[in-house]
Protein backbone atom coordinates (compact mmCIF):
# COMPACT_ATOMS: atom_id res chain seq x y z
CA UNK A 1 0.00 0.00 0.00
CA UNK A 2 1.35 3.40 -0.97
CA UNK A 3 0.99 6.16 1.60
CA UNK A 4 -0.17 9.61 0.52
CA UNK A 5 2.82 11.87 -0.22
CA UNK A 6 2.12 14.22 2.71
CA UNK A 7 2.14 11.36 5.21
CA UNK A 8 5.20 9.64 3.77
CA UNK A 9 7.09 12.98 3.75
CA UNK A 10 6.11 13.56 7.39
CA UNK A 11 7.24 10.06 8.38
CA UNK A 12 10.48 10.49 6.42
CA UNK A 13 11.23 13.81 8.14
CA UNK A 14 10.37 12.38 11.56
CA UNK A 15 12.80 9.54 10.92
CA UNK A 16 15.52 11.96 9.83
CA UNK A 17 14.94 14.17 12.88
CA UNK A 18 15.13 11.12 15.17
CA UNK A 19 18.43 10.06 13.57
CA UNK A 20 19.69 13.63 14.04
CA UNK A 21 18.75 13.57 17.74
CA UNK A 22 20.50 10.21 18.24
CA UNK A 23 23.60 11.59 16.50
CA UNK A 24 23.51 14.63 18.80
CA UNK A 25 23.63 12.43 21.91
CA UNK A 26 26.40 10.26 20.40
CA UNK A 27 28.57 13.20 19.29
CA UNK A 28 27.87 15.16 22.47
CA UNK A 29 29.97 12.79 24.56
CA UNK A 30 32.87 12.48 22.12
CA UNK A 31 36.03 14.59 22.40
CA UNK A 32 37.01 17.25 21.43
CA UNK A 33 34.92 19.66 23.48
CA UNK A 34 34.39 23.01 21.81
CA UNK A 35 34.21 25.09 25.01
CA UNK A 36 35.05 28.39 23.37
CA UNK A 37 32.24 28.02 20.82
CA UNK A 38 29.85 26.79 23.54
CA UNK A 39 30.39 29.94 25.64
CA UNK A 40 30.15 32.15 22.56
CA UNK A 41 26.82 30.56 21.64
CA UNK A 42 25.59 30.81 25.25
CA UNK A 43 26.34 34.55 25.09
CA UNK A 44 24.57 34.95 21.74
CA UNK A 45 21.57 32.78 22.54
CA UNK A 46 21.22 33.69 26.20
CA UNK A 47 22.47 37.17 26.97
CA UNK A 48 21.42 38.66 23.65
CA UNK A 49 17.89 37.26 24.01
CA UNK A 50 17.45 38.84 27.42
CA UNK A 51 16.12 42.25 26.28
CA UNK A 52 13.37 40.68 24.16
CA UNK A 53 12.49 38.09 26.80
CA UNK A 54 12.54 40.76 29.54
CA UNK A 55 10.27 43.21 27.72
CA UNK A 56 7.81 40.43 26.84
CA UNK A 57 7.82 39.13 30.42
CA UNK A 58 7.18 42.61 31.81
CA UNK A 59 4.22 43.19 29.48
CA UNK A 60 2.94 39.66 30.14
CA UNK A 61 2.98 40.15 33.93
CA UNK A 62 1.37 43.57 33.73
CA UNK A 63 -1.39 42.62 31.27
CA UNK A 64 -2.21 39.42 33.12
CA UNK A 65 -2.56 41.35 36.39
CA UNK A 66 -4.69 44.16 34.94
CA UNK A 67 -6.98 41.74 33.09
CA UNK A 68 -7.42 39.30 36.00
CA UNK A 69 -8.22 41.96 38.56
CA UNK A 70 -11.88 42.68 37.58
CA UNK A 71 -12.85 38.99 37.77
CA UNK A 72 -11.28 38.57 41.21
CA UNK A 73 -12.78 41.88 42.33
CA UNK A 74 -16.30 40.48 41.68
CA UNK A 75 -15.62 37.88 44.38
CA UNK A 76 -13.78 40.30 46.64
CA UNK A 77 -10.62 38.22 46.15
CA UNK A 78 -8.18 40.82 44.82
CA UNK A 79 -5.80 39.96 47.64
CA UNK A 80 -5.26 36.65 45.84
CA UNK A 81 -3.99 38.45 42.74
CA UNK A 82 -0.22 38.25 43.51
CA UNK A 83 -0.35 34.54 44.36
CA UNK A 84 -2.54 33.64 41.39
CA UNK A 85 -0.41 35.54 38.87
CA UNK A 86 2.85 34.24 40.37
CA UNK A 87 1.72 30.61 40.22
CA UNK A 88 0.48 30.87 36.65
CA UNK A 89 3.65 32.64 35.53
CA UNK A 90 6.10 30.31 37.27
CA UNK A 91 4.29 27.10 36.40
CA UNK A 92 3.14 27.68 32.87
CA UNK A 93 3.18 31.07 31.21
CA UNK A 94 6.81 31.95 31.94
CA UNK A 95 8.37 28.76 30.51
CA UNK A 96 6.02 28.47 27.52
CA UNK A 97 6.07 32.11 26.42
CA UNK A 98 9.84 32.38 26.89
CA UNK A 99 10.34 29.17 24.92
CA UNK A 100 8.09 30.41 22.10
CA UNK A 101 9.93 33.73 21.93
CA UNK A 102 13.25 31.90 21.84
CA UNK A 103 11.92 29.52 19.18
CA UNK A 104 11.17 32.58 17.07
CA UNK A 105 14.39 34.45 17.77
CA UNK A 106 17.01 31.73 18.23
CA UNK A 107 15.44 28.86 16.26
CA UNK A 108 15.03 30.94 13.11
CA UNK A 109 18.49 32.45 13.43
CA UNK A 110 20.13 29.02 13.80
CA UNK A 111 18.07 27.59 10.93
CA UNK A 112 19.11 30.48 8.68
CA UNK A 113 22.75 30.50 9.79
CA UNK A 114 23.36 26.78 9.34
CA UNK A 115 21.23 26.72 6.18
CA UNK A 116 23.35 29.47 4.69
CA UNK A 117 26.55 27.69 5.76
CA UNK A 118 25.25 24.52 4.12
CA UNK A 119 24.40 26.08 0.75
CA UNK A 120 27.68 28.02 0.62
CA UNK A 121 29.63 24.81 1.36
CA UNK A 122 31.07 26.13 4.64
CA UNK A 123 29.96 22.95 6.42
CA UNK A 124 31.65 20.86 3.72
CA UNK A 125 34.77 23.01 4.14
CA UNK A 126 34.87 22.17 7.84
CA UNK A 127 34.44 18.49 7.08
CA UNK A 128 37.23 18.34 4.49
CA UNK A 129 39.56 20.10 6.91
CA UNK A 130 39.16 17.02 9.13
CA UNK A 131 37.02 18.85 11.68
CA UNK A 132 33.71 17.50 12.93
CA UNK A 133 31.20 20.19 11.88
CA UNK A 134 28.39 18.48 13.78
CA UNK A 135 30.25 18.79 17.05
CA UNK A 136 31.36 22.36 16.38
CA UNK A 137 28.09 23.72 15.01
CA UNK A 138 25.26 21.56 16.30
CA UNK A 139 26.31 20.27 19.72
CA UNK A 140 27.48 23.69 20.92
CA UNK A 141 24.33 25.49 19.76
CA UNK A 142 21.91 22.92 21.16
CA UNK A 143 23.64 22.71 24.55
CA UNK A 144 23.91 26.47 24.84
CA UNK A 145 20.16 26.92 24.35
CA UNK A 146 19.27 23.99 26.59
CA UNK A 147 21.26 25.51 29.47
CA UNK A 148 20.43 29.16 28.83
CA UNK A 149 16.66 28.76 28.47
CA UNK A 150 16.02 27.81 32.14
CA UNK A 151 18.09 30.86 33.17
CA UNK A 152 16.05 33.06 30.84
CA UNK A 153 12.85 31.56 32.26
CA UNK A 154 13.92 32.40 35.84
CA UNK A 155 14.70 35.98 34.83
CA UNK A 156 11.44 36.25 32.86
CA UNK A 157 9.50 34.97 35.89
CA UNK A 158 11.11 37.55 38.18
CA UNK A 159 10.47 40.39 35.73
CA UNK A 160 6.85 39.30 35.19
CA UNK A 161 6.28 39.10 38.97
CA UNK A 162 7.72 42.59 39.39
CA UNK A 163 5.39 43.81 36.61
CA UNK A 164 2.54 42.17 38.53
CA UNK A 165 3.54 44.24 41.60
CA UNK A 166 3.29 47.40 39.48
CA UNK A 167 -0.07 46.23 38.06
CA UNK A 168 -1.46 45.53 41.50
CA UNK A 169 -0.49 49.05 42.59
CA UNK A 170 -2.47 50.63 39.73
CA UNK A 171 -5.67 50.23 41.75
CA UNK A 172 -4.51 49.28 45.23
CA UNK A 173 -1.66 50.30 47.48
CA UNK A 174 0.39 47.23 48.35
CA UNK A 175 3.87 47.40 49.86
CA UNK A 176 6.68 45.41 48.23
CA UNK A 177 7.15 43.42 51.45
CA UNK A 178 3.49 42.35 51.57
CA UNK A 179 3.46 41.55 47.85
CA UNK A 180 6.69 39.56 48.21
CA UNK A 181 5.26 37.56 51.13
CA UNK A 182 2.01 36.86 49.26
CA UNK A 183 3.92 35.63 46.20
CA UNK A 184 6.58 33.51 47.84
CA UNK A 185 4.30 32.01 50.50
CA UNK A 186 2.13 30.64 47.70
CA UNK A 187 5.00 29.19 45.67
CA UNK A 188 6.61 25.83 46.38
CA UNK A 189 9.58 23.95 44.97
CA UNK A 190 7.11 21.75 43.11
CA UNK A 191 6.14 24.86 41.12
CA UNK A 192 9.71 25.77 40.19
CA UNK A 193 11.42 22.45 39.54
CA UNK A 194 9.08 20.94 36.91
CA UNK A 195 9.00 24.32 35.13
CA UNK A 196 12.78 24.48 34.95
CA UNK A 197 13.07 20.85 33.87
CA UNK A 198 10.61 21.38 31.05
CA UNK A 199 12.41 24.61 30.08
CA UNK A 200 15.57 22.57 29.61
CA UNK A 201 13.71 20.24 27.23
CA UNK A 202 12.13 23.21 25.43
CA UNK A 203 15.66 24.53 24.92
CA UNK A 204 16.85 21.18 23.58
CA UNK A 205 13.89 21.17 21.18
CA UNK A 206 14.56 24.69 19.87
CA UNK A 207 18.24 23.90 19.32
CA UNK A 208 17.74 20.49 17.78
CA UNK A 209 14.96 21.54 15.42
CA UNK A 210 16.78 24.74 14.36
CA UNK A 211 20.02 22.86 13.74
CA UNK A 212 18.26 19.98 11.98
CA UNK A 213 16.45 22.31 9.60
CA UNK A 214 19.56 24.37 8.87
CA UNK A 215 21.97 21.44 8.64
CA UNK A 216 19.76 19.66 6.11
CA UNK A 217 18.85 22.76 4.15
CA UNK A 218 18.73 22.37 0.37
CA UNK A 219 17.74 24.27 -2.77
CA UNK A 220 19.90 27.38 -2.28
CA UNK A 221 18.61 30.61 -0.78
CA UNK A 222 15.00 29.44 -1.01
CA UNK A 223 15.99 26.50 1.19
CA UNK A 224 17.58 28.84 3.76
CA UNK A 225 14.31 30.79 4.10
CA UNK A 226 12.37 27.57 4.38
CA UNK A 227 14.77 26.23 7.02
CA UNK A 228 14.39 29.37 9.15
CA UNK A 229 10.62 29.37 8.83
CA UNK A 230 10.04 25.69 9.47
CA UNK A 231 12.48 25.73 12.41
CA UNK A 232 10.13 28.13 14.21
CA UNK A 233 6.91 26.35 13.23
CA UNK A 234 8.08 22.83 14.11
CA UNK A 235 9.83 23.89 17.35
CA UNK A 236 6.72 25.82 18.53
CA UNK A 237 4.50 22.84 17.82
CA UNK A 238 6.81 20.44 19.66
CA UNK A 239 7.00 22.86 22.62
CA UNK A 240 3.20 22.68 23.02
CA UNK A 241 3.24 18.89 22.74
CA UNK A 242 6.04 18.64 25.33
CA UNK A 243 4.12 21.00 27.60
CA UNK A 244 1.07 18.76 27.39
CA UNK A 245 3.21 15.72 28.25
CA UNK A 246 4.88 17.62 31.12
CA UNK A 247 1.46 18.50 32.62
CA UNK A 248 0.43 14.83 32.53
CA UNK A 249 3.69 13.75 34.16
CA UNK A 250 3.50 16.34 36.96
CA UNK A 251 -0.13 15.33 37.50
CA UNK A 252 0.85 11.67 37.77
CA UNK A 253 3.59 12.58 40.22
CA UNK A 254 1.10 14.57 42.29
CA UNK A 255 2.91 17.85 41.74
CA UNK A 256 -0.06 19.81 40.34
Amino acid at each position, binding site marked *: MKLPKGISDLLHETGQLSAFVIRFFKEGFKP*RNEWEELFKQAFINGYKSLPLVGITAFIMGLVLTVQSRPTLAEFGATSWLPAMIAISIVREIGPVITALICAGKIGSSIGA*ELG*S*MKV*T*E*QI*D*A*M*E*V*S*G*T*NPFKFLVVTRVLSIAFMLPILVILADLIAIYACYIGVNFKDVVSWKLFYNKVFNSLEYSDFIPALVKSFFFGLTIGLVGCFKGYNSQKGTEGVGHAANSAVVVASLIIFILDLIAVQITDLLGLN
Partner: protein
Amino acid sequence: MDNTNIILKIEGLCKAFGSNVVLNNFNLELVKGENIVVLGKSGSGKSVLIKCIVGLLKPDKGNIHVFGTNMLELNQESLDKIRTKIGFLFQNSALYDSMTVRENLEFPMRRHWISLTSTEVKDLVEESLDNVGLLHAINMMPSELSGGMRKRIGIARTLIMKPQLILYDEPTTGLDPITSREIVQLMLDLQKKYHTSSVIISHDMSVAKLTANKIIVLLDGRNYAEGTYDELKKSSDKNINQFFEFAS
Protein backbone atom coordinates in the same frame (compact mmCIF):
# COMPACT_ATOMS: atom_id res chain seq x y z
CA MET B 1 55.78 3.83 -12.79
CA ASP B 2 57.04 3.68 -9.22
CA ASN B 3 54.00 3.00 -7.01
CA THR B 4 55.42 5.02 -4.12
CA ASN B 5 55.14 8.13 -6.26
CA ILE B 6 51.41 7.68 -6.82
CA ILE B 7 49.51 10.21 -4.77
CA LEU B 8 46.01 9.49 -6.03
CA LYS B 9 44.61 6.52 -7.90
CA ILE B 10 40.97 6.21 -8.94
CA GLU B 11 39.71 3.00 -10.48
CA GLY B 12 36.32 2.34 -12.05
CA LEU B 13 34.53 5.12 -10.18
CA CYS B 14 30.75 5.16 -10.60
CA LYS B 15 28.25 7.55 -9.06
CA ALA B 16 24.60 8.11 -9.88
CA PHE B 17 21.89 10.26 -8.36
CA GLY B 18 18.71 8.28 -8.95
CA SER B 19 18.59 7.57 -12.66
CA ASN B 20 21.12 10.31 -13.45
CA VAL B 21 24.49 8.61 -13.99
CA VAL B 22 27.19 11.18 -13.27
CA LEU B 23 30.36 9.10 -13.18
CA ASN B 24 30.63 5.88 -15.12
CA ASN B 25 33.87 3.92 -14.77
CA PHE B 26 36.13 6.94 -14.32
CA ASN B 27 39.87 6.38 -13.83
CA LEU B 28 42.70 8.68 -12.81
CA GLU B 29 46.29 8.38 -11.63
CA LEU B 30 48.19 11.33 -10.18
CA VAL B 31 51.89 11.14 -9.38
CA LYS B 32 53.93 13.31 -7.04
CA GLY B 33 54.41 16.87 -8.26
CA GLU B 34 51.94 16.47 -11.11
CA ASN B 35 48.95 18.65 -11.99
CA ILE B 36 45.97 17.00 -13.63
CA VAL B 37 43.18 19.15 -15.02
CA VAL B 38 39.79 17.48 -15.32
CA LEU B 39 38.00 19.29 -18.09
CA GLY B 40 34.30 19.07 -18.64
CA LYS B 41 31.18 21.05 -19.32
CA SER B 42 28.97 22.33 -16.49
CA GLY B 43 27.04 19.47 -14.95
CA SER B 44 29.40 16.83 -16.30
CA GLY B 45 30.24 15.55 -12.81
CA LYS B 46 33.58 17.26 -12.19
CA SER B 47 32.65 18.56 -8.72
CA VAL B 48 31.08 15.20 -7.84
CA LEU B 49 34.41 13.59 -8.69
CA ILE B 50 36.48 15.66 -6.24
CA LYS B 51 33.80 15.40 -3.56
CA CYS B 52 34.10 11.61 -3.90
CA ILE B 53 37.90 11.86 -3.61
CA VAL B 54 37.71 13.70 -0.31
CA GLY B 55 34.85 11.61 1.08
CA LEU B 56 32.07 14.18 0.95
CA LEU B 57 30.16 11.85 -1.38
CA LYS B 58 30.22 8.08 -1.36
CA PRO B 59 30.66 6.50 -4.78
CA ASP B 60 28.42 3.63 -5.85
CA LYS B 61 31.31 1.60 -7.20
CA GLY B 62 35.07 1.79 -7.65
CA ASN B 63 38.14 2.54 -5.57
CA ILE B 64 39.88 5.73 -4.51
CA HIS B 65 43.41 5.38 -3.13
CA VAL B 66 45.00 8.48 -1.62
CA PHE B 67 48.64 8.08 -0.53
CA GLY B 68 48.08 4.33 -0.96
CA THR B 69 45.10 4.21 1.39
CA ASN B 70 41.66 3.19 0.18
CA MET B 71 39.47 6.13 1.19
CA LEU B 72 36.30 4.05 1.06
CA GLU B 73 37.47 1.65 3.77
CA LEU B 74 38.39 4.26 6.37
CA ASN B 75 36.52 4.97 9.57
CA GLN B 76 35.70 8.59 10.43
CA GLU B 77 38.80 9.11 12.57
CA SER B 78 41.21 7.82 9.92
CA LEU B 79 39.37 9.73 7.22
CA ASP B 80 39.72 12.98 9.21
CA LYS B 81 43.43 12.26 9.66
CA ILE B 82 44.05 11.72 5.96
CA ARG B 83 41.97 14.79 5.11
CA THR B 84 44.53 16.97 6.87
CA LYS B 85 46.96 16.00 4.08
CA ILE B 86 44.47 17.01 1.39
CA GLY B 87 43.70 20.62 0.60
CA PHE B 88 40.40 21.54 -0.98
CA LEU B 89 39.68 24.89 -2.58
CA PHE B 90 35.94 25.33 -3.04
CA GLN B 91 34.44 27.08 -6.03
CA ASN B 92 33.14 29.97 -3.88
CA SER B 93 36.07 29.65 -1.41
CA ALA B 94 33.63 28.66 1.40
CA LEU B 95 35.22 30.99 3.97
CA TYR B 96 33.51 30.88 7.37
CA ASP B 97 31.39 34.04 7.36
CA SER B 98 31.26 34.45 11.13
CA MET B 99 35.06 34.36 11.54
CA THR B 100 37.80 36.82 10.65
CA VAL B 101 40.44 35.87 8.11
CA ARG B 102 42.80 35.00 10.99
CA GLU B 103 40.21 32.73 12.63
CA ASN B 104 39.47 31.09 9.26
CA LEU B 105 43.11 30.11 8.93
CA GLU B 106 43.52 29.13 12.57
CA PHE B 107 40.43 26.92 12.55
CA PRO B 108 41.95 23.67 11.18
CA MET B 109 45.28 24.18 12.97
CA ARG B 110 43.73 24.62 16.40
CA ARG B 111 42.02 21.26 15.99
CA HIS B 112 44.81 19.18 14.49
CA TRP B 113 48.04 20.73 15.72
CA ILE B 114 46.99 21.29 19.29
CA SER B 115 50.58 21.24 20.57
CA LEU B 116 51.38 24.49 18.73
CA THR B 117 51.86 27.57 20.87
CA SER B 118 49.93 30.77 20.13
CA THR B 119 53.09 32.34 18.68
CA GLU B 120 53.64 29.39 16.34
CA VAL B 121 50.01 29.54 15.19
CA LYS B 122 50.32 33.30 14.63
CA ASP B 123 53.54 32.84 12.63
CA LEU B 124 52.00 30.14 10.43
CA VAL B 125 48.90 32.24 9.75
CA GLU B 126 51.04 35.24 8.84
CA GLU B 127 53.31 33.13 6.63
CA SER B 128 50.32 31.68 4.82
CA LEU B 129 48.74 35.09 4.26
CA ASP B 130 52.07 36.51 3.15
CA ASN B 131 52.29 33.73 0.53
CA VAL B 132 49.07 34.97 -1.04
CA GLY B 133 49.93 38.67 -0.58
CA LEU B 134 47.11 39.42 1.84
CA LEU B 135 48.78 39.85 5.19
CA HIS B 136 47.02 43.21 5.59
CA ALA B 137 43.61 41.46 5.47
CA ILE B 138 44.31 39.38 8.57
CA ASN B 139 41.62 41.01 10.73
CA MET B 140 39.02 41.49 8.00
CA MET B 141 35.74 39.62 7.77
CA PRO B 142 35.03 37.54 4.61
CA SER B 143 32.17 39.91 3.72
CA GLU B 144 34.71 42.74 3.36
CA LEU B 145 36.78 40.86 0.76
CA SER B 146 36.53 40.95 -3.04
CA GLY B 147 36.06 37.75 -5.07
CA GLY B 148 39.78 37.54 -5.88
CA MET B 149 40.76 38.17 -2.27
CA ARG B 150 38.36 35.48 -1.06
CA LYS B 151 39.93 33.04 -3.49
CA ARG B 152 43.43 33.93 -2.25
CA ILE B 153 42.37 33.53 1.38
CA GLY B 154 40.79 30.20 0.41
CA ILE B 155 44.15 29.12 -1.03
CA ALA B 156 45.95 30.31 2.11
CA ARG B 157 43.54 28.30 4.30
CA THR B 158 44.02 25.27 2.04
CA LEU B 159 47.80 25.52 2.30
CA ILE B 160 48.11 26.19 6.01
CA MET B 161 47.96 22.50 6.90
CA LYS B 162 50.79 21.85 4.40
CA PRO B 163 48.82 19.38 2.26
CA GLN B 164 50.51 17.07 -0.21
CA LEU B 165 47.50 16.92 -2.50
CA ILE B 166 45.33 19.89 -3.42
CA LEU B 167 41.93 19.65 -5.08
CA TYR B 168 40.83 22.83 -6.83
CA ASP B 169 37.16 23.16 -7.73
CA GLU B 170 36.87 25.73 -10.53
CA PRO B 171 39.57 28.02 -9.10
CA THR B 172 38.93 30.90 -11.53
CA THR B 173 35.15 30.84 -11.81
CA GLY B 174 33.58 34.26 -11.35
CA LEU B 175 36.88 36.13 -11.63
CA ASP B 176 37.97 38.62 -14.28
CA PRO B 177 40.73 37.46 -16.69
CA ILE B 178 43.47 39.44 -14.93
CA THR B 179 42.59 38.12 -11.46
CA SER B 180 42.20 34.61 -12.93
CA ARG B 181 45.71 34.82 -14.29
CA GLU B 182 47.01 36.01 -10.91
CA ILE B 183 45.29 33.11 -9.12
CA VAL B 184 46.73 30.58 -11.59
CA GLN B 185 50.20 32.07 -11.16
CA LEU B 186 49.78 31.88 -7.39
CA MET B 187 48.78 28.21 -7.64
CA LEU B 188 51.91 27.48 -9.67
CA ASP B 189 54.20 29.45 -7.36
CA LEU B 190 52.86 27.72 -4.28
CA GLN B 191 53.16 24.32 -5.93
CA LYS B 192 56.83 25.01 -6.60
CA LYS B 193 57.37 26.17 -3.04
CA TYR B 194 55.54 23.33 -1.26
CA HIS B 195 55.95 20.52 -3.86
CA THR B 196 52.26 19.67 -3.92
CA SER B 197 50.28 17.64 -6.46
CA SER B 198 46.94 18.88 -7.72
CA VAL B 199 43.71 17.86 -9.34
CA ILE B 200 42.17 20.94 -10.90
CA ILE B 201 38.54 20.88 -11.94
CA SER B 202 37.86 23.47 -14.60
CA HIS B 203 36.24 24.37 -17.88
CA ASP B 204 38.62 27.29 -18.33
CA MET B 205 41.18 26.47 -21.04
CA SER B 206 43.61 29.15 -19.88
CA VAL B 207 43.81 27.38 -16.51
CA ALA B 208 44.39 24.06 -18.28
CA LYS B 209 47.05 25.52 -20.54
CA LEU B 210 49.04 27.09 -17.71
CA THR B 211 48.76 24.40 -15.06
CA ALA B 212 48.16 20.97 -16.59
CA ASN B 213 50.78 18.29 -16.97
CA LYS B 214 47.91 16.16 -18.17
CA ILE B 215 44.30 16.90 -19.09
CA ILE B 216 41.42 14.43 -18.73
CA VAL B 217 38.27 15.28 -20.64
CA LEU B 218 35.25 14.10 -18.64
CA LEU B 219 32.30 13.31 -20.87
CA ASP B 220 29.33 11.09 -20.11
CA GLY B 221 30.92 10.28 -16.76
CA ARG B 222 34.01 8.63 -18.22
CA ASN B 223 37.54 9.50 -19.41
CA TYR B 224 36.66 10.64 -22.90
CA ALA B 225 40.18 11.72 -23.77
CA GLU B 226 43.54 12.22 -22.05
CA GLY B 227 46.73 13.98 -22.99
CA THR B 228 48.74 17.14 -22.70
CA TYR B 229 47.28 20.50 -23.72
CA ASP B 230 49.10 20.42 -27.05
CA GLU B 231 48.10 16.82 -27.80
CA LEU B 232 44.44 17.53 -27.21
CA LYS B 233 44.57 20.77 -29.15
CA LYS B 234 45.63 18.82 -32.23
CA SER B 235 42.72 16.39 -31.89
CA SER B 236 40.12 16.29 -34.63
CA ASP B 237 37.36 15.12 -32.25
CA LYS B 238 34.60 17.74 -32.17
CA ASN B 239 33.83 17.11 -28.49
CA ILE B 240 37.41 18.03 -27.63
CA ASN B 241 37.72 20.81 -30.17
CA GLN B 242 34.79 22.71 -28.71
CA PHE B 243 36.79 23.50 -25.56
CA PHE B 244 39.62 25.00 -27.62
CA GLU B 245 37.26 26.84 -30.00
CA PHE B 246 35.56 28.73 -27.23
CA ALA B 247 38.90 29.39 -25.52
CA SER B 248 40.23 31.14 -28.59
